């Protein structure tokens, strides 16, 4: 128990990869064994994440070994490079760890019907979870980068092997885009390392001594572009619709639910702490991009005929709120932005799962190809309505709080921009309702008169998310309280730069 407590983050991070080796050792024809063990392996981090959650101190703020960061694990890794195996969580990463731990078992369940190469699939999936968890908890820049990239490889195969008809294209596009982003980041990492004295990869140290860095504008942009590709921020977003559409359901969920957050997480973790002055300078620029994302994503979503693509574009739109929020440098905006990261993770996961459910049954995702199926599949419809209404920011559901916070925060800084961003809510409502109408309402398309409603497994994946959507909408403190001190800290960092 002592060991578990002191190594919580390592355990959360590495249990999946250790488990993946077990999975690899199973005979390939024992598909169910593999599935169940994968499920168990992903549930362990979830439980540990809850332990983490329970033990998380909600009052400490800062970004150093003594303040703000908790559950620190630090071991020397490569002495000569001053690289450390340095993990810890603060208010910024904690919600993400929770989200990741939550989404992963759900995705395992959603992958239950994978038939081809089961072993490889779950092996890669578990690897992916390690990469994601690691990226969120790593506080050594180099370690962070390693995990960041470790996410890529399984993703490439998961999209490429188990994806849709254009999976090869989507996989390579995804990989190339993110690879471009990450090599740019890598250059900056190296630059920071060399510019710091003594040379270090320790994020807290880098943040503390950031005055040593030269070429700040270039570095900031390099980092920003690197992360923006992941978010994705216009105009680096074109990989996303392809990747989402082609990826298998569970992977779309992971992509939209967790991977996109990596980008904004990176911006907050790196750009904000290490180049606060530049961040302050570029705030308006970020806000403009955020607003473009919101509007552009929403308009593109409205045009889509493919349900999954629509959801993909809606992700672009929703991530725009995150950018706008964190660019506002107000407590409301930042909290809203980060909360939106969490909320979007939950909501979009739900949406993709729903798309997956219907795709499994109808084998197509054309929005116009359905119609009036609400009475045929009432439970499914209920969940779909819930998810779509959450997506359009209906008050009482979680997204509303984050979006409202973002707008409240952003309006204090950017009046016109925020007003423009608020029109996004109209467009979002329009496409969400239009989609619901075309799929669920209207005259029943007779082809789907015998459409089965959701199964037990699917319900198990969807209902927890639905509960979270509603609960956090009414009582957001469980997540909001985690991040507040950290957000204030980050915000002060930037605000003081401005003065």
């Amino acid at each position, binding site marked *: 128990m002592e060991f578990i407590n002191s190594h919580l983050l390592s355990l959360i991070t590495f249990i999946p990869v250790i488990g993946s080796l077990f999975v690899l050792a199973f005979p*390939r024809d024992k598909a169910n064994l593999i599935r169940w063990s994968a499920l168990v392996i992903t549930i362990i981090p979830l439980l540990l994440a809850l332990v983490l959650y329970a033990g998380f101190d909600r009052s400490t703020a800062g970004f150093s070994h003594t303040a703000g960061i908790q559950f620190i694990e630090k071991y020397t890794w490569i002495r000569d490079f001053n690289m450390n195996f340095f993990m810890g969580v603060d208010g910024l990463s904690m919600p993400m760890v929770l989200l990741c731990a939550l989404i992963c078992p759900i995705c395992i369940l959603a992958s239950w019907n994978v038939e081809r190469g089961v072993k490889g699939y779950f092996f890669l999936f578990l690897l992916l979870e390690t990469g994601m968890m690691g990226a969120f908890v790593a506080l050594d820049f180099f370690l962070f980068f390693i995990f960041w990239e470790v996410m890529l490889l399984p993703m490439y195969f998961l999209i490429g092997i188990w994806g849709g008809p254009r999976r090869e294209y989507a996989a390579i596009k995804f990989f190339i885009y993110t*690879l*471009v982003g990450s090599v740019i980041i*890598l*250059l900056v990492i190296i630059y920071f390392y060399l*510019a710091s004295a003594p040379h270090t990869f320790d994020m807290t140290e880098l943040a503390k001594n950031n005055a040593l860095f030269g070429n700040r504008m270039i570095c900031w942009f390099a980092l920003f572009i690197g992360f923006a590709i992941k978010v994705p921020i216009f105009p680096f977003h074109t990989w996303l619709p392809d990747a989402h559409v082609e990826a298998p359901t569970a992977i779309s969920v992971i992509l939209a639910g967790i991977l996109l957050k990596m980008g904004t997480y990176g911006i907050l973790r790196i750009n904000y702490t290490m180049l606060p002055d530049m961040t302050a300078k570029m705030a308006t620029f970020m806000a403009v991009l955020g607003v473009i994302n919101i509007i552009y994503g929403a308009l593109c979503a409205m045009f889509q005929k493919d349900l999954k693509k629509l959801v993909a574009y809606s992700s672009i739109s929703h991530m725009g709120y995150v950018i706008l929020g964190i660019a506002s440098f107000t407590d409301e905006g930042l909290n809203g932005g980060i909360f939106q990261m969490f909320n979007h993770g939950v909501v979009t996961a739900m949406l993709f799962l729903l798309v997956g459910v219907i795709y499994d049954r109808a084998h197509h995702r054309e929005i116009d190809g359905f119609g009036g199926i609400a009475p045929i599949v009432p439970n499914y419809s209920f969940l779909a309505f819930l998810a779509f209404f959450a997506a359009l920011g209906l008050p009482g559901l979680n997204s509303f709080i984050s979006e409202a916070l973002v707008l409240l925060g952003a309006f204090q800084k950017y009046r016109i921009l925020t007003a423009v961003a608020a029109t996004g809510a109209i467009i979002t409502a329009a496409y969400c309702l239009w989609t619901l109408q075309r799929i669920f309402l209207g005259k029943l398309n007779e082809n789907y008169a015998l459409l089965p409603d959701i199964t037990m497994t699917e319900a198990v994946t969807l209902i927890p998310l639905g509960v979270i959507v509603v609960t956090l909408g009414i009582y957001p403190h469980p997540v909001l309280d985690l991040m507040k001190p950290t957000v204030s800290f980050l915000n002060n960092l930037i605000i003081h730069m401005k003065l």
Partner: protein
Amino acid sequence: MNNLASLNYFTAEIFLSGFIILLLVMSFLRMDRDNGIGFYYLAGVFGIAVTLILDLAGWGESGDGAILFYGMARNDHLAHLFKFLCVLSSLILMVFSMVSRETNKRFDNPAEYVLLILSSTLGMILMASSSNLLMLYISLELLSLTSYILTGFADREEKTSEAAVKYLLYGGIASGVMLYGFSLLYGVTGTLDYTAMREVLWEHKVSGMVLSISTIMILAGMGFKIAAFPFHAWCPDVYEGAPTPFTAFLSVGSKAAGFVIIVRFFFQIFGAGDGGNFEILGDILDWPMAIAVLSACTMTYGNMAALQQRNIKRLLAYSSIAQAGYVLMAVASRSQPGISSAFFYLCVYFIMNFGAFLAVIIINNELNSEMIEDYEGLVWKSRKGAFLASMLAICLFSLTGVPPFAGFIGKLYLLLSVLAKGSSLYWLAVIAVINTVISFYYYSRILRLMFLSRRLRGADLSKLEKSDYLPYSVMAGLAFLTILLGIYWEPLDGLSRLAATFIK
């Protein structure tokens, strides 16, 4: 140090020379009658292994920087480290030769094959330590000439002899050009010894023009050895035509030997000072810039040209050109960390490239094809296919430079050296990372066919047999090392730091 005293340091070389002659005698006596090929291969492995051990035994005193054989050779960490690398690559060549269908059954002259491999090993280890133009030339030619022969050795297809002739002609011309450069250098400095040359150059600041011309010409010869653009043209053709084990060797061992002479040549003659305060003959001869340009061209060319290759060996040839470009980047950084990172990268490259080639060899054994199309759906064929495809994928990802594989750490070292304070080669780093991305295109094509495609092409795979154990375990070992070094590389880091200590 005189010749006799120097022999103490050269036990490995002496043993190797003796062993070569022993092998010759054995082949005359036809001692292979009953045992066939295996005997000589085992003998070769034994010989190389003993050389390696002797080399290791000499490690203790390798740091003394002794000048051996009246200045012909230097005894330093750089020499030793590269000797290990080269001898190990010969060892791997022997193993690969035993494994590959191309080389393990068809020779009438296994003894000669092994003998030539040993000779080229000798050439490489002499290259690693030589610090005299003449010594350099002889050792270089020892490697080159034996390589020409080895390329054409497995004379089974037309390709093979074509490759050998091309290699010979191109190599002849390139070394001719280099010789001309040597002669000019000799003319300028009046000596063949590196140390003396440096003294002359640094004291007298001789004519930059002739020096520069000679350097360019010398670069042609050395660039030929490492297959740097524009001296690379032989590389794809020879790689494709040569027996695959030897191709692997060429791309790793021979290249490493090429790099050690470049490092020693440029740093010992044109550089002075210790690591922190390293200077170059910048005002007379801006060789770092020349190498930087060469590096940029090489990696870009290699990656671009690899994009549309259909033959895996050819593709790997271009990829190895690009990799040479990356390493040159470190040389261009003209710093001690640069040398360390070059060595580090070569070690990593050693593992991942040999890994890739071993996979190619095994797959070639199974499918009897080197065409990438035939790799289609490999992973779905059987457990063997899945294993091979995964291993190859690990190596290819590592070659791309993606964490957590060793190739990434190697690239990190290179970038670190290029971006170090005081260096003005930021643009080179940018080109390098762009190239990393480009390179993924063609690596991913192989991955795509092996993993993503749902069609099965090419021949079926055989059942796992006892004879497969060796290659598969070596394969797994290489892949494991690729991952291990991507996660923990401190020991190798220590070694590579030693590589740069020869600059005093």
